[in-house]
Protein backbone atom coordinates (compact mmCIF):
# COMPACT_ATOMS: atom_id res chain seq x y z
CA UNK A 1 0.00 0.00 0.00
CA UNK A 2 1.09 3.52 -0.83
CA UNK A 3 0.73 4.68 2.78
CA UNK A 4 3.09 1.99 4.10
CA UNK A 5 5.72 2.00 1.38
CA UNK A 6 5.46 5.19 -0.64
CA UNK A 7 4.76 3.04 -3.71
CA UNK A 8 1.40 3.27 -5.49
CA UNK A 9 0.00 -0.19 -6.20
CA UNK A 10 -1.66 -0.91 -9.54
CA UNK A 11 -4.98 -1.22 -7.72
CA UNK A 12 -4.55 2.25 -6.18
CA UNK A 13 -3.52 3.67 -9.53
CA UNK A 14 -6.61 2.55 -11.45
CA UNK A 15 -8.95 5.46 -10.63
CA UNK A 16 -6.48 8.07 -11.93
CA UNK A 17 -5.63 6.32 -15.20
CA UNK A 18 -7.31 7.80 -18.28
CA UNK A 19 -9.64 5.41 -20.16
CA UNK A 20 -8.33 3.66 -23.27
CA UNK A 21 -10.38 5.76 -25.72
CA UNK A 22 -8.95 8.96 -24.21
CA UNK A 23 -5.38 7.64 -24.33
CA UNK A 24 -5.77 6.95 -28.05
CA UNK A 25 -6.57 10.59 -28.71
CA UNK A 26 -3.16 11.91 -27.61
CA UNK A 27 -1.43 13.47 -24.59
CA UNK A 28 -3.27 13.50 -21.26
CA UNK A 29 -2.31 13.99 -17.62
CA UNK A 30 -2.13 11.34 -14.91
CA UNK A 31 -2.31 12.90 -11.45
CA UNK A 32 -0.85 10.53 -8.87
CA UNK A 33 -2.00 12.51 -5.85
CA UNK A 34 -4.24 10.16 -3.89
CA UNK A 35 -4.43 11.71 -0.44
CA UNK A 36 -6.53 14.61 0.86
CA UNK A 37 -3.85 17.23 1.53
CA UNK A 38 -4.18 21.02 1.83
CA UNK A 39 -2.61 21.81 -1.53
CA UNK A 40 -3.98 23.18 -4.80
CA UNK A 41 -1.46 24.80 -7.21
CA UNK A 42 -2.44 22.25 -9.89
CA UNK A 43 -5.97 23.66 -9.98
CA UNK A 44 -4.94 27.21 -10.83
CA UNK A 45 -2.18 26.03 -13.19
CA UNK A 46 -4.62 24.45 -15.63
CA UNK A 47 -5.65 26.85 -18.41
CA UNK A 48 -8.77 24.84 -19.30
CA UNK A 49 -9.95 24.10 -15.74
CA UNK A 50 -9.65 20.34 -16.17
CA UNK A 51 -8.54 19.89 -12.55
CA UNK A 52 -11.12 20.40 -9.81
CA UNK A 53 -11.39 19.83 -6.11
CA UNK A 54 -14.89 19.00 -4.99
CA UNK A 55 -14.86 20.35 -1.47
CA UNK A 56 -12.00 22.83 -1.65
CA UNK A 57 -8.28 22.87 -1.08
CA UNK A 58 -8.03 19.85 1.24
CA UNK A 59 -9.66 17.53 -1.28
CA UNK A 60 -7.64 15.49 -3.75
CA UNK A 61 -7.53 16.71 -7.36
CA UNK A 62 -10.03 15.26 -9.84
CA UNK A 63 -9.04 15.37 -13.50
CA UNK A 64 -11.61 15.56 -16.26
CA UNK A 65 -9.81 13.44 -18.88
CA UNK A 66 -11.96 14.77 -21.72
CA UNK A 67 -11.24 18.43 -20.94
CA UNK A 68 -7.51 17.87 -20.36
CA UNK A 69 -5.47 18.68 -23.45
CA UNK A 70 -2.25 17.19 -22.09
CA UNK A 71 -0.59 20.60 -22.39
CA UNK A 72 1.61 19.93 -19.36
CA UNK A 73 1.22 23.35 -17.73
CA UNK A 74 0.32 21.74 -14.39
CA UNK A 75 3.38 19.45 -14.27
CA UNK A 76 6.08 21.84 -13.01
CA UNK A 77 3.66 23.63 -10.65
CA UNK A 78 2.99 20.55 -8.54
CA UNK A 79 5.17 20.57 -5.39
CA UNK A 80 4.54 16.83 -5.02
CA UNK A 81 5.98 16.15 -8.51
CA UNK A 82 2.92 13.94 -8.83
CA UNK A 83 1.70 14.85 -12.32
CA UNK A 84 2.81 12.97 -15.45
CA UNK A 85 1.77 13.40 -19.08
CA UNK A 86 1.43 10.30 -21.22
CA UNK A 87 1.19 10.39 -24.98
CA UNK A 88 0.23 7.04 -26.48
CA UNK A 89 -0.32 8.59 -29.91
CA UNK A 90 3.39 8.76 -30.65
CA UNK A 91 4.68 8.29 -34.18
CA UNK A 92 7.18 5.53 -33.27
CA UNK A 93 5.49 2.09 -33.26
CA UNK A 94 5.45 0.38 -29.85
CA UNK A 95 6.67 3.52 -28.10
CA UNK A 96 4.97 6.22 -26.08
CA UNK A 97 6.04 9.52 -24.55
CA UNK A 98 6.15 10.20 -20.82
CA UNK A 99 6.75 13.66 -19.33
CA UNK A 100 7.69 14.37 -15.71
CA UNK A 101 9.21 17.01 -13.47
CA UNK A 102 12.92 16.67 -12.87
CA UNK A 103 14.76 18.65 -10.18
CA UNK A 104 18.18 16.99 -10.00
CA UNK A 105 21.43 17.98 -11.69
CA UNK A 106 22.57 17.53 -14.37
CA UNK A 107 19.40 18.14 -16.37
CA UNK A 108 19.60 15.77 -19.36
CA UNK A 109 19.75 17.08 -22.93
CA UNK A 110 17.47 16.22 -25.83
CA UNK A 111 18.42 12.91 -27.50
CA UNK A 112 20.52 11.84 -24.53
CA UNK A 113 20.07 8.26 -23.32
CA UNK A 114 19.00 7.91 -19.66
CA UNK A 115 17.93 5.06 -17.37
CA UNK A 116 14.17 4.79 -16.96
CA UNK A 117 13.25 3.79 -13.38
CA UNK A 118 10.08 2.46 -11.80
CA UNK A 119 8.30 3.68 -8.64
CA UNK A 120 10.92 2.03 -6.42
CA UNK A 121 13.86 3.49 -8.31
CA UNK A 122 14.65 0.17 -10.03
CA UNK A 123 16.06 0.16 -13.56
CA UNK A 124 13.45 -0.69 -16.21
CA UNK A 125 15.15 0.11 -19.52
CA UNK A 126 17.19 2.68 -21.37
CA UNK A 127 15.17 5.59 -22.70
CA UNK A 128 15.84 8.45 -25.09
CA UNK A 129 15.10 12.01 -24.02
CA UNK A 130 12.64 13.44 -26.52
CA UNK A 131 12.29 16.94 -25.06
CA UNK A 132 13.43 19.10 -22.16
CA UNK A 133 11.58 22.27 -21.13
CA UNK A 134 13.30 24.38 -18.52
CA UNK A 135 12.35 28.05 -18.93
CA UNK A 136 12.87 30.64 -16.15
CA UNK A 137 9.11 30.58 -15.50
CA UNK A 138 9.44 26.96 -14.35
CA UNK A 139 11.88 28.15 -11.67
CA UNK A 140 14.36 25.25 -11.97
CA UNK A 141 11.85 22.45 -12.25
CA UNK A 142 12.63 21.01 -15.66
CA UNK A 143 9.99 18.97 -17.48
CA UNK A 144 11.66 16.02 -19.19
CA UNK A 145 9.92 13.90 -21.81
CA UNK A 146 11.28 10.43 -22.54
CA UNK A 147 10.40 7.82 -25.14
CA UNK A 148 9.49 4.52 -23.45
CA UNK A 149 8.04 1.14 -24.48
CA UNK A 150 4.27 1.72 -24.68
CA UNK A 151 3.53 -1.28 -22.47
CA UNK A 152 5.70 0.08 -19.61
CA UNK A 153 4.08 3.53 -19.57
CA UNK A 154 2.39 2.94 -16.20
CA UNK A 155 5.52 1.52 -14.55
CA UNK A 156 8.16 4.07 -15.45
CA UNK A 157 8.06 7.13 -13.20
CA UNK A 158 11.61 8.39 -12.86
CA UNK A 159 14.94 8.70 -14.64
CA UNK A 160 18.61 8.51 -13.79
CA UNK A 161 20.90 10.66 -15.88
Amino acid at each position, binding site marked *: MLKNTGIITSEELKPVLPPQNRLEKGPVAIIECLQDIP*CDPCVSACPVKAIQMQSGITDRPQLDFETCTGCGACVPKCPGLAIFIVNMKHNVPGKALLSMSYELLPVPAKDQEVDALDRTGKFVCKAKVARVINPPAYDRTAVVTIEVPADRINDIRSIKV
Partner: protein
Amino acid sequence: MSRNTEIFVIGGGPAGLSAAIVASQLGARTLLVDDSARLGGQLIKQTHRFFGSSNRDAGIRGITIAEMLCKEVKDASDRLTVLENTAAVGFYANKEAGILSQDAYERVSYQAAIVCTGATENSLTFENNDLPGIYGAGGVQTLMNVHGIKPGRKILMVGSGNIGLIVSYQLLQAGVEVVGLVEGMPTIGGYLVHASKIRRLGVPIYTSHTILKALGETGVEGAVLCRVDERFQPVPNTELMIECDCICLAVGLTPLIDLFQQAQCRMVHVGELGGLVPLHDSAMRTTNPDVFVAGDASGIEEATTAMLGGRIAGARAFESIHGKSPKAEAIVEEAREELRTLRSGSTGERIRWGRERVLKEVGAC
Protein backbone atom coordinates in the same frame (compact mmCIF):
# COMPACT_ATOMS: atom_id res chain seq x y z
CA MET B 1 20.33 52.61 25.48
CA SER B 2 16.62 52.04 25.26
CA ARG B 3 14.14 51.90 22.45
CA ASN B 4 10.52 52.75 22.27
CA THR B 5 7.98 51.19 19.96
CA GLU B 6 4.27 50.58 19.71
CA ILE B 7 4.48 47.01 18.53
CA PHE B 8 7.40 44.72 19.32
CA VAL B 9 7.66 41.59 17.18
CA ILE B 10 10.04 38.82 18.27
CA GLY B 11 11.15 36.40 15.54
CA GLY B 12 11.50 37.05 11.82
CA GLY B 13 10.06 33.84 10.36
CA PRO B 14 6.91 33.85 8.22
CA ALA B 15 4.72 34.53 11.27
CA GLY B 16 6.76 37.43 12.66
CA LEU B 17 7.36 39.02 9.26
CA SER B 18 3.65 38.87 8.43
CA ALA B 19 2.69 40.31 11.82
CA ALA B 20 5.20 43.16 11.48
CA ILE B 21 4.14 43.92 7.90
CA VAL B 22 0.45 44.13 8.80
CA ALA B 23 1.01 46.14 11.98
CA SER B 24 3.22 48.68 10.24
CA GLN B 25 1.00 48.91 7.16
CA LEU B 26 -1.96 49.68 9.42
CA GLY B 27 0.09 52.51 10.88
CA ALA B 28 1.77 51.26 14.04
CA ARG B 29 5.41 51.99 14.81
CA THR B 30 6.89 48.51 14.84
CA LEU B 31 10.19 46.93 15.89
CA LEU B 32 11.12 43.44 14.70
CA VAL B 33 14.06 41.51 16.15
CA ASP B 34 15.47 38.20 14.94
CA ASP B 35 18.39 36.37 16.49
CA SER B 36 19.80 35.08 13.21
CA ALA B 37 21.79 36.89 10.54
CA ARG B 38 19.10 36.68 7.91
CA LEU B 39 15.34 37.21 8.07
CA GLY B 40 12.97 34.43 7.03
CA GLY B 41 13.16 31.83 9.81
CA GLN B 42 12.69 28.30 8.50
CA LEU B 43 11.86 29.62 5.04
CA ILE B 44 15.44 30.43 4.07
CA LYS B 45 16.29 26.71 4.25
CA GLN B 46 13.34 25.59 2.15
CA THR B 47 14.51 25.14 -1.41
CA HIS B 48 11.48 23.02 -2.32
CA ARG B 49 8.19 24.20 -3.76
CA PHE B 50 5.65 24.68 -0.99
CA PHE B 51 2.43 22.83 -0.80
CA GLY B 52 -0.51 24.81 0.46
CA SER B 53 -2.93 27.27 -1.05
CA SER B 54 -2.05 29.00 -4.30
CA ASN B 55 -3.69 32.15 -2.86
CA ARG B 56 -0.82 32.06 -0.38
CA ASP B 57 2.26 31.25 -2.39
CA ALA B 58 1.98 27.47 -2.75
CA GLY B 59 3.97 26.04 -5.63
CA ILE B 60 6.64 28.67 -4.87
CA ARG B 61 9.91 27.78 -3.15
CA GLY B 62 10.14 28.66 0.55
CA ILE B 63 13.23 30.79 0.03
CA THR B 64 11.37 32.85 -2.59
CA ILE B 65 8.49 33.41 -0.15
CA ALA B 66 11.06 34.75 2.34
CA GLU B 67 12.37 37.15 -0.29
CA MET B 68 8.85 38.37 -1.05
CA LEU B 69 8.13 39.01 2.64
CA CYS B 70 11.47 40.78 3.07
CA LYS B 71 10.61 43.09 0.19
CA GLU B 72 7.33 44.02 1.89
CA VAL B 73 9.31 44.66 5.07
CA LYS B 74 11.60 47.04 3.18
CA ASP B 75 8.65 48.86 1.64
CA ALA B 76 7.27 49.51 5.12
CA SER B 77 10.60 50.79 6.44
CA ASP B 78 9.34 54.24 7.43
CA ARG B 79 7.40 52.67 10.30
CA LEU B 80 9.12 49.31 10.65
CA THR B 81 12.57 48.93 12.19
CA VAL B 82 14.34 45.59 11.81
CA LEU B 83 17.23 44.37 13.94
CA GLU B 84 18.97 41.19 12.82
CA ASN B 85 21.43 39.26 15.00
CA THR B 86 19.38 40.48 17.93
CA ALA B 87 17.69 38.17 20.42
CA ALA B 88 14.88 39.02 22.79
CA VAL B 89 16.15 37.65 26.06
CA GLY B 90 13.48 38.49 28.56
CA PHE B 91 10.42 40.44 29.59
CA TYR B 92 10.31 42.92 32.45
CA ALA B 93 7.20 44.20 34.15
CA ASN B 94 5.61 47.40 32.75
CA LYS B 95 5.76 46.43 29.08
CA GLU B 96 9.50 46.33 28.80
CA ALA B 97 11.76 43.70 27.29
CA GLY B 98 15.51 43.17 26.95
CA ILE B 99 17.23 42.63 23.62
CA LEU B 100 20.79 41.50 23.07
CA SER B 101 22.67 42.21 19.86
CA GLN B 102 26.29 41.37 19.11
CA ASP B 103 27.53 44.52 20.80
CA ALA B 104 24.81 45.85 23.05
CA TYR B 105 22.10 45.05 25.50
CA GLU B 106 19.11 47.35 25.23
CA ARG B 107 15.70 47.79 26.76
CA VAL B 108 12.62 48.01 24.59
CA SER B 109 9.46 49.56 25.86
CA TYR B 110 6.42 48.57 23.87
CA GLN B 111 2.65 48.67 24.01
CA ALA B 112 1.99 45.25 22.54
CA ALA B 113 4.41 42.37 21.90
CA ILE B 114 3.93 39.62 19.31
CA VAL B 115 6.06 36.56 20.05
CA CYS B 116 6.81 34.42 16.97
CA THR B 117 9.82 32.42 18.10
CA GLY B 118 9.02 29.24 16.14
CA ALA B 119 10.08 25.85 17.40
CA THR B 120 12.97 23.64 18.50
CA GLU B 121 13.72 20.17 17.22
CA ASN B 122 13.03 17.00 19.18
CA SER B 123 15.70 14.38 19.69
CA LEU B 124 15.49 10.62 20.12
CA THR B 125 17.11 8.29 22.65
CA PHE B 126 19.10 5.37 21.31
CA GLU B 127 22.51 3.90 22.03
CA ASN B 128 25.37 6.16 20.89
CA ASN B 129 23.07 9.03 19.89
CA ASP B 130 25.84 11.46 20.83
CA LEU B 131 28.29 10.32 18.15
CA PRO B 132 29.57 13.02 15.80
CA GLY B 133 27.56 12.75 12.57
CA ILE B 134 24.14 12.66 14.20
CA TYR B 135 22.17 15.79 13.37
CA GLY B 136 18.71 17.24 13.64
CA ALA B 137 16.97 17.85 10.31
CA GLY B 138 17.14 21.61 10.86
CA GLY B 139 20.90 21.44 11.31
CA VAL B 140 21.28 19.39 8.14
CA GLN B 141 19.18 21.89 6.22
CA THR B 142 21.15 24.85 7.55
CA LEU B 143 24.48 23.24 6.62
CA MET B 144 23.30 22.19 3.20
CA ASN B 145 20.97 24.95 2.03
CA VAL B 146 22.29 28.03 3.82
CA HIS B 147 26.03 27.29 3.90
CA GLY B 148 26.38 24.84 0.98
CA ILE B 149 28.08 22.12 3.05
CA LYS B 150 27.17 18.44 2.68
CA PRO B 151 26.59 16.86 6.11
CA GLY B 152 27.91 13.47 4.93
CA ARG B 153 28.09 11.10 2.00
CA LYS B 154 25.64 8.39 3.08
CA ILE B 155 22.84 9.46 5.35
CA LEU B 156 20.13 7.60 7.24
CA MET B 157 16.94 9.59 7.86
CA VAL B 158 14.80 8.91 10.94
CA GLY B 159 11.18 10.12 10.79
CA SER B 160 8.73 10.09 7.88
CA GLY B 161 6.87 13.32 8.58
CA ASN B 162 7.01 15.99 5.91
CA ILE B 163 10.30 17.29 7.27
CA GLY B 164 12.00 13.88 7.04
CA LEU B 165 10.63 13.35 3.54
CA ILE B 166 11.50 16.81 2.24
CA VAL B 167 14.97 16.96 3.77
CA SER B 168 15.68 13.51 2.26
CA TYR B 169 14.71 14.89 -1.14
CA GLN B 170 16.91 17.95 -0.67
CA LEU B 171 19.82 15.69 0.32
CA LEU B 172 19.37 13.70 -2.89
CA GLN B 173 19.36 16.99 -4.80
CA ALA B 174 22.63 17.92 -3.13
CA GLY B 175 24.14 14.65 -4.30
CA VAL B 176 24.09 12.88 -0.92
CA GLU B 177 23.07 9.22 -0.89
CA VAL B 178 20.07 8.60 1.38
CA VAL B 179 20.45 4.95 2.46
CA GLY B 180 17.00 4.69 4.01
CA LEU B 181 14.21 6.35 5.90
CA VAL B 182 13.06 4.84 9.20
CA GLU B 183 9.58 5.25 10.68
CA GLY B 184 8.20 3.62 13.84
CA MET B 185 4.57 3.85 12.76
CA PRO B 186 3.20 1.37 10.22
CA THR B 187 2.26 4.23 7.89
CA ILE B 188 4.16 7.19 6.47
CA GLY B 189 3.51 10.35 8.50
CA GLY B 190 3.97 13.04 5.87
CA TYR B 191 2.31 13.62 2.53
CA LEU B 192 2.44 10.57 0.31
CA VAL B 193 3.40 12.59 -2.77
CA HIS B 194 6.62 13.57 -0.97
CA ALA B 195 7.22 9.91 0.00
CA SER B 196 6.72 8.65 -3.56
CA LYS B 197 9.13 11.33 -4.77
CA ILE B 198 12.06 9.90 -2.77
CA ARG B 199 10.95 6.28 -3.18
CA ARG B 200 11.23 6.47 -6.95
CA LEU B 201 14.73 7.85 -6.56
CA GLY B 202 15.53 4.56 -4.84
CA VAL B 203 15.30 5.41 -1.12
CA PRO B 204 13.92 2.45 0.89
CA ILE B 205 11.25 3.41 3.44
CA TYR B 206 11.30 1.24 6.58
CA THR B 207 7.91 1.70 8.26
CA SER B 208 7.32 -0.19 11.57
CA HIS B 209 11.06 0.10 12.24
CA THR B 210 13.16 1.94 14.76
CA ILE B 211 16.82 2.72 15.27
CA LEU B 212 18.41 0.68 18.07
CA LYS B 213 21.88 2.11 18.00
CA ALA B 214 24.45 4.03 16.05
CA LEU B 215 27.70 2.23 15.26
CA GLY B 216 31.20 3.72 15.29
CA GLU B 217 33.89 4.93 17.69
CA THR B 218 34.79 8.47 16.71
CA GLY B 219 31.96 9.09 14.27
CA VAL B 220 28.98 7.37 12.70
CA GLU B 221 29.85 4.28 10.65
CA GLY B 222 26.45 2.67 10.55
CA ALA B 223 23.21 2.01 12.39
CA VAL B 224 21.25 -0.99 13.63
CA LEU B 225 17.53 -0.96 12.89
CA CYS B 226 14.87 -3.40 13.94
CA ARG B 227 11.20 -4.01 13.36
CA VAL B 228 8.72 -2.87 16.03
CA ASP B 229 5.31 -4.33 16.91
CA GLU B 230 2.03 -2.41 17.37
CA ARG B 231 3.14 -1.33 20.83
CA PHE B 232 6.46 -0.05 19.44
CA GLN B 233 8.38 -2.89 21.12
CA PRO B 234 11.39 -4.22 19.19
CA VAL B 235 10.66 -7.57 17.56
CA PRO B 236 13.51 -10.01 18.40
CA ASN B 237 15.76 -11.25 15.62
CA THR B 238 14.74 -8.56 13.12
CA GLU B 239 17.92 -6.48 13.49
CA LEU B 240 19.31 -5.01 10.32
CA MET B 241 22.65 -3.25 9.89
CA ILE B 242 22.89 -0.23 7.61
CA GLU B 243 26.10 1.47 6.59
CA CYS B 244 26.09 5.26 6.76
CA ASP B 245 28.30 8.14 7.91
CA CYS B 246 25.52 10.41 9.07
CA ILE B 247 22.15 10.03 10.82
CA CYS B 248 19.52 12.74 10.53
CA LEU B 249 16.73 12.95 13.11
CA ALA B 250 13.43 14.41 11.90
CA VAL B 251 11.27 13.38 14.81
CA GLY B 252 9.16 16.42 15.40
CA LEU B 253 9.24 19.96 16.71
CA THR B 254 8.30 21.55 20.01
CA PRO B 255 7.13 25.19 20.28
CA LEU B 256 9.80 27.53 21.64
CA ILE B 257 8.01 29.03 24.61
CA ASP B 258 10.45 30.35 27.24
CA LEU B 259 9.49 33.95 26.63
CA PHE B 260 5.78 33.28 27.23
CA GLN B 261 6.51 31.62 30.52
CA GLN B 262 8.56 34.59 31.50
CA ALA B 263 5.77 36.95 30.47
CA GLN B 264 3.53 34.95 32.78
CA CYS B 265 1.25 33.73 30.03
CA ARG B 266 -0.75 30.68 31.06
CA MET B 267 0.40 27.58 29.22
CA VAL B 268 -1.46 24.46 28.17
CA HIS B 269 -0.14 21.11 26.95
CA VAL B 270 -1.72 20.09 23.64
CA GLY B 271 -0.10 17.04 22.04
CA GLU B 272 -1.58 17.83 18.62
CA LEU B 273 0.18 21.20 18.62
CA GLY B 274 3.59 19.83 19.66
CA GLY B 275 3.56 20.28 23.44
CA LEU B 276 3.22 23.28 25.72
CA VAL B 277 1.73 26.35 24.03
CA PRO B 278 0.54 29.67 25.44
CA LEU B 279 -3.22 29.79 25.83
CA HIS B 280 -4.55 32.27 23.30
CA ASP B 281 -7.88 33.40 21.92
CA SER B 282 -8.94 33.76 18.28
CA ALA B 283 -7.23 37.18 18.20
CA MET B 284 -3.94 35.32 19.00
CA ARG B 285 -3.83 37.16 22.34
CA THR B 286 -2.37 35.27 25.27
CA THR B 287 -3.57 35.50 28.87
CA ASN B 288 -1.12 38.36 29.28
CA PRO B 289 -3.15 41.03 27.41
CA ASP B 290 -0.02 42.79 26.12
CA VAL B 291 1.42 39.63 24.55
CA PHE B 292 0.25 38.06 21.29
CA VAL B 293 1.52 34.87 19.64
CA ALA B 294 1.67 33.49 16.09
CA GLY B 295 3.27 30.73 14.05
CA ASP B 296 4.84 27.52 15.28
CA ALA B 297 5.21 29.04 18.77
CA SER B 298 1.40 28.86 19.02
CA GLY B 299 1.38 25.22 17.84
CA ILE B 300 3.42 23.40 15.19
CA GLU B 301 1.79 23.83 11.82
CA GLU B 302 2.93 25.25 8.48
CA ALA B 303 4.33 28.39 6.94
CA THR B 304 1.03 29.25 5.27
CA THR B 305 -0.87 29.07 8.53
CA ALA B 306 1.99 30.85 10.32
CA MET B 307 1.66 33.78 7.92
CA LEU B 308 -2.11 33.94 8.38
CA GLY B 309 -1.82 33.71 12.17
CA GLY B 310 0.82 36.45 12.00
CA ARG B 311 -1.52 38.69 10.01
CA ILE B 312 -4.29 38.20 12.57
CA ALA B 313 -1.93 38.91 15.47
CA GLY B 314 -0.54 42.01 13.73
CA ALA B 315 -4.01 43.42 13.06
CA ARG B 316 -5.38 42.69 16.54
CA ALA B 317 -2.26 44.01 18.25
CA PHE B 318 -2.69 47.23 16.24
CA GLU B 319 -6.31 47.48 17.40
CA SER B 320 -5.29 46.87 21.00
CA ILE B 321 -3.39 50.16 20.81
CA HIS B 322 -5.31 52.27 18.29
CA GLY B 323 -8.85 50.99 18.77
CA LYS B 324 -11.18 49.28 16.30
CA SER B 325 -10.25 49.60 12.65
CA PRO B 326 -12.28 48.40 9.65
CA LYS B 327 -9.05 47.76 7.74
CA ALA B 328 -7.72 45.53 10.52
CA GLU B 329 -11.05 43.76 10.72
CA ALA B 330 -10.94 43.03 6.98
CA ILE B 331 -7.44 41.53 7.28
CA VAL B 332 -8.56 39.32 10.16
CA GLU B 333 -11.71 38.18 8.35
CA GLU B 334 -9.79 37.25 5.24
CA ALA B 335 -7.11 35.37 7.16
CA ARG B 336 -9.70 33.50 9.24
CA GLU B 337 -11.52 32.33 6.15
CA GLU B 338 -8.28 31.06 4.60
CA LEU B 339 -7.31 29.29 7.81
CA ARG B 340 -10.69 27.64 7.97
CA THR B 341 -10.34 26.16 4.48
CA LEU B 342 -6.71 25.15 5.05
CA ARG B 343 -7.57 23.30 8.23
CA SER B 344 -10.66 21.60 6.83
CA GLY B 345 -10.59 17.99 5.69
CA SER B 346 -8.98 14.93 7.20
CA THR B 347 -5.34 16.09 7.22
CA GLY B 348 -6.34 19.17 9.21
CA GLU B 349 -8.21 17.16 11.80
CA ARG B 350 -5.49 16.92 14.45
CA ILE B 351 -4.70 20.62 14.18
CA ARG B 352 -8.40 21.47 14.42
CA TRP B 353 -8.77 19.44 17.60
CA GLY B 354 -5.70 21.06 19.08
CA ARG B 355 -6.81 24.58 18.17
CA GLU B 356 -10.30 23.97 19.52
CA ARG B 357 -8.86 22.75 22.80
CA VAL B 358 -6.80 25.90 23.20
CA LEU B 359 -9.82 28.11 22.51
CA LYS B 360 -12.00 26.13 24.91
CA GLU B 361 -9.49 26.44 27.72
CA VAL B 362 -9.22 30.17 27.13
CA GLY B 363 -12.99 30.43 27.39
CA ALA B 364 -12.78 28.64 30.72
CA CYS B 365 -10.27 30.99 32.33
